[in-house]
């Protein structure tokens, strides 16, 4: 029993999520439960999408991280909305463009990492500055509205479930299959444990890492596209929140930071948790200082309960 629990580190983030949800809903005697759930699903969706990409990268092993996520979101959101220019007929083109931007950034990130041997953390940080400048340069931060149909889609619900959450769920399923069922999933896990052993086991290590960085950037750009459509326009700072968030949901969700081990359900648990904690503390009317402190303590509490790695025996 205990064993099967500790084998599923994501359990804890869900347990914490449920507790925080209950505590928040109690405040209104239960009347807020539907609204809160829908809001949580909506906003968790964005963290999930970027979180999945970040998880793949983190799985590649120590030092692998993508700090260009926020800038990528901003650039793809800005450019896509500018190109679509409020016309419904351009929605698909905008999406393709956003994905293309993601691919380009992913390629550039990996080029820096591989060709110039720059450690990923600095490579992606430097790249994020360049991408951010590009976003400024494209339209100087003007907020252009999304096409009507796209805005409607991203802000409405299907059977009570927010559409963006459905999109994120679909992406999660794909990610889960990739990770658990495909050769690619095995490969990134192997590389995360020992790139050299992976190479000697016949894995095309560079090819796999390349795909992974591109995948992460594409998910970030997709998230930028969705978020800009959802919130009525792209802003130059719209990705800022998602730098820490994308990392936090991955690690709180139980993915081993040392790489080689990752899990998709945990990202959902952690994303919902991160949203609900802030909502709970806001609901109970704590000021910013106390709220920050409690958020931190709750995160530490969750990880303490989850108890880290089981000892090596």
């Amino acid at each position, binding site marked *: 029993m205990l064993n099967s629990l500790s084998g599923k580190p994501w359990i804890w983030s869900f347990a914490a999520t449920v507790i925080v949800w209950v505590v928040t809903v109690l405040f209104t005697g239960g009347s807020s439960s539907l609204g809160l759930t829908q809001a949580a699903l909506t906003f968790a969706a964005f963290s999930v999408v970027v979180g999945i990409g970040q998880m793949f990268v983190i799985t590649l092993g120590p030092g692998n991280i993508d700090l260009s996520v926020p800038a990528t979101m901003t650039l793809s959101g800005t450019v896509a909305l500018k190109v679509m220019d409020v016309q419904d007929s351009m929605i698909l083109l905008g999406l393709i463009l956003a994905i293309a931007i993601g691919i380009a950034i992913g390629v550039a990130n990996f080029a820096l990492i591989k060709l110039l041997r720059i450690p990923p953390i600095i490579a992606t940080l430097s790249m994020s500055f360049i991408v951010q400048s590009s976003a400024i340069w494209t339209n100087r931060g003007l907020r252009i509205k999304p096409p009507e149909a796209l805005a409607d889609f991203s802000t409405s619900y299907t059977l009570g479930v927010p559409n963006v959450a459905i999109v994120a769920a679909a992406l999660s399923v794909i990610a889960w*299959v990739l990770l658990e*069922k*495909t*050769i*690619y999933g*095995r490969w990134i*896990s*192997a590389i995360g*444990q*020992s790139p*050299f*052993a*992976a*190479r*000697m*086991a*016949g*894995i*095309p*290590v*560079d*090819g796999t890492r*390349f795909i992974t960085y591109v995948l992460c950037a594409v998910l970030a750009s997709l998230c930028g596209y969705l978020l800009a459509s959802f919130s009525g326009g792209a802003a130059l700072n719209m990705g800022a929140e998602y730098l820490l968030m994308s990392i936090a949901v991955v690690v709180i969700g139980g993915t*081993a930071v040392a790489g*080689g*081990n990752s899990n998709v359900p945990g990202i959902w648990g952690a994303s919902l948790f991160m949203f609900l904690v802030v909502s709970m503390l806001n609901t109970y009317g704590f000021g910013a200082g106390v709220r920050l402190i409690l958020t931190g303590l709750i995160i530490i509490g969750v990880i303490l309960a989850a108890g880290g790695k089981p000892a*090596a*025996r």
Partner: protein
Amino acid sequence: MDNAVLNQEVVAARGVKVAFGAVKALDGADLVIRSGECVGLVGHNGAGKSTIVNVINGALSPQEGSVAYGGDTASPGIARARANGVRCVFQELSLCPNLTIAENARIMHGDLGGGRWRRRGIDLVSKQLSDIFPDHRIDCASVVEDLSIAERQMVEIAINFAAVSAAPKLVILDEPTSSLDAALAGQLMAYVRRFVGSGGSVLLISHILGEILSTSDRIVVMKDGKVVADRDARQFDTRRLVETMGSVVRERAERRVFGRKRRTPILSVPAASASDMRFEAFEGEIIGLAGLGGHGQTEALLDLYLSANSNWLPVREPKMAFVAGDRGLNGTFPLWSILKNLSISSLKTLSSRNLIDAEQEDRVSEGWKKRIEIRTPNMHNPILSLSGGNQQKVLFARALATSAKVVLMDDPMRGVDIGTKQEVYDILRAEAESGRTFIWYSTEMDEICLCDRVYVFRDGTIAAHLTGEDVSEENVLAASFAGGEAA
């Protein structure tokens, strides 16, 4: 037993039981070591040798039984074992690769403190190294990660034998020669005799029965967590030892008669320099790479492998497979199960439409588990739950499970027990018969002599090429040392 009565008991483990989950690693084992003797400890892979070592050195506390150090029976633990003069050279290398040799000595010797410890550490280790391995060429100011695996092993041995204030009473050597070539192994064994002669004691674990027989005063044989024999070394010879361990003794295999079926080599590497020779491999051959350790054999294998395997694109049919010798560096994936470690190189054939077929994966790995006897109740257990030798078998199975026509082996039998070795040799032959080519770097002369052809390496180049009946210990040694060794 009678001749040891006069000697003092250094450590005594009695009735020790240790279980890892369902696996009884030690099932009531007794081991007593007295001063002035070298005890040889042998047994199949997973017999419990490393486990009893961990009990003696205090890292593991047994679930049952007692450990006493010269009568001191206080609660066990690493600190007490060390205080009682127990030192241990572990099966997997346990230096800190990022530190210098002196810094490692500082960590291993709590009493090396005080001013100028760095200088004294270097002196200490270099003196000890010269004592054990007289003509070593290790720069004692180096960082450990700049050393070859053999050099690391030598350094670790030297650090453990070295004495700062108090000399070690018992030095445990868990497969100390697995990465050393015959010459270095010989020097170590000679030193062990001298150390024992001066009143120290040594617990020697090895799968190379020759060195056990020649070096030990007493031999303890373990099987499935129990001690099955504990007798004077003179009462054993190879045959009786192997039989006691529970393996069937076989005559030394006859050299295979290899007729070259096709005249075009499937692999060919031109000579790199004037002193070098062309390297060729034909279908169905077993080719040995010989010479002293660290003379470029591993590098040659790595070069061959890396040039044949794309780092960018996945391939359906790998041309080559690789069996690592340095498990920790380029072999195992520590977070994974045995199963995943085994199947990683052959996933293409185990999947349909890019999705891995779990059932087929299970089936294939069960097949290999039986075929080379991987000792585990369940292939889904973590790889690190296997004993060292069994982990090595998994790496073997990983390579053989691929469809690669060429298998490169980097001294792959390190720490594999004799029974298994013979089975693996049989598998190699069968595979070679069916057309696979093996390129095999080995530090064991017996293995080199099993090869159809042998390239002898010296200073990073091929110094000699031996074929058929010319493959012999004398010829290999001659080629290893010939020429420029003026110094």
